């Protein structure tokens, strides 16, 4: 997971899902995530990948007419998620 330090954003999920399929089939490590809204309001989904393979990835996508919006160096803060177990229960579940 830590190697997935790059992010491709797209104008439409059509391109995002096609990119995921193409890159995965070609042996790239990729992961579709909800598009980070601080980067772009455009994308429903964005694609994490290994930034060191940027040129290879963009070359492949370009040759298949998949349009990329932007390439970012991006590691989601949620990778550092450590559950803060509050133990709080709401309503009926409080009594379980």
């Amino acid at each position, binding site marked *: 997971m830590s190697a997935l330090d790059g992010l491709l954003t797209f104008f439409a999920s059509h391109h995002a899902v096609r990119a995921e399929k193409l890159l995965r089939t070609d042996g790239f490590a990729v992961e579709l*995530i*909800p*598009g*980070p*809204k*601080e980067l772009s*309001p455009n994308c*429903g989904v964005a694609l994490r990948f290994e930034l060191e393979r940027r040129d290879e990835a963009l070359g492949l996508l370009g040759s298949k007419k998949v349009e990329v919006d932007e390439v970012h160096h991006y590691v*989601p*803060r*949620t990778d*550092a*998620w*450590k*559950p*803060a*177990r*509050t133990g*709080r*229960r*709401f*309503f*009926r*579940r409080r009594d379980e």
Partner: protein
Amino acid sequence: MDVIYLDNAATSWPKPPEVRDALDRYFGEGGGNPGRSGHRMSVAAARIVEDARDAVAELFAIDDPSRVLFGKNVTEGLNLGITGTVKPGDHVITSSIEHNSVMRPLRHLETIGVDVTVVACAADGTLDAAAVEAAIRPETRLIVTLHGSNVMGTLLPIADIAGIARSRGIPYLVDAAQTAGAIPIDVDALGIDMLAFTGHKALLGLTGTGGLVVADHVELEPIMRGGTGSRSDLEIQPDFRPDAFESGTLNVAGLAGLAAGVRFLLGRGVDHVAAHERSLVDRFLRGAAEVPGVEVHGPADLDLRCGVVSFAIDGLVSSEVGTLLDREYGIMSRVGLHCAPGAHRTLGTFPTGSVRFGFSVFTTHDEVDAGLEAVDEIAAWARSER
């Protein structure tokens, strides 16, 4: 991890088992082309379409099923209602919290000489019908608003707007994407001239179904022309409903599912669905109020809300919350702008958007509580990260 599906405002899941059964029957028996060929399988398909029309007519309390025009979604219904009534030189009134299925057709019409007034809603999405009345001009030919906001769940005063529109002789088109099947809508009693609906949300049917309910007095132009199976001797479009507006083979399988979904709702009672979703929203609002750093958008008054809630967690972007809800809790939400930039500008949440939960007839109180617990833990993590 069990999935908790709180994205019913995007599309409902699960569907009633009756919907699956109806599709099984369709594939087994009904698979002809409706109204075209006249053999028994064609007639069976036509019956499916008309059964769906009857079910939708009953749901909206209209006596003439030919007023139900089927298309592929609410977007098509809205495009028909908007571009089928408005011409260059006309004036249209809408609200500031509309979905792009209304705003994009209107913004396009502006480029060909239609004037559009966007009446501002308050920051919680509420709208004073008097503001709509004040925007009326002699050349106003259409008022179009949503019923329930797909962003923060706010209900607009459709009865008041319909009364104003009717008294001024202006057609009123209602976008009921979020409310059809979730809140009782008596189209004629409310005085609504056109109502666009989708089949795959609260009507519990399939994607690819929806349409427009239209009143007799509305002069509507088709937006698409083609084969209808009727008046095949003529190369001009028939002028009668529903054929004038239903060119090309309909989504018969989808309509079989839609009919089953609507019949399920009619059996359950839409008023009961509304009461159930109201109790879910009440529970969510009360629970979220206990969580530090969580802001729920929209009005506090449950009378002004449908089964959609939208919120923000302090310190996190909506997409981060969506990622954690899915990955760590198996909770499906919808984050971002919800195809409604105007609504988020009204809310003050443009361009990063919000996190949305959409409830359904099948959502349970326990699922709302699980959602609250997840939000509570995510908010606690966000505080610890600062």
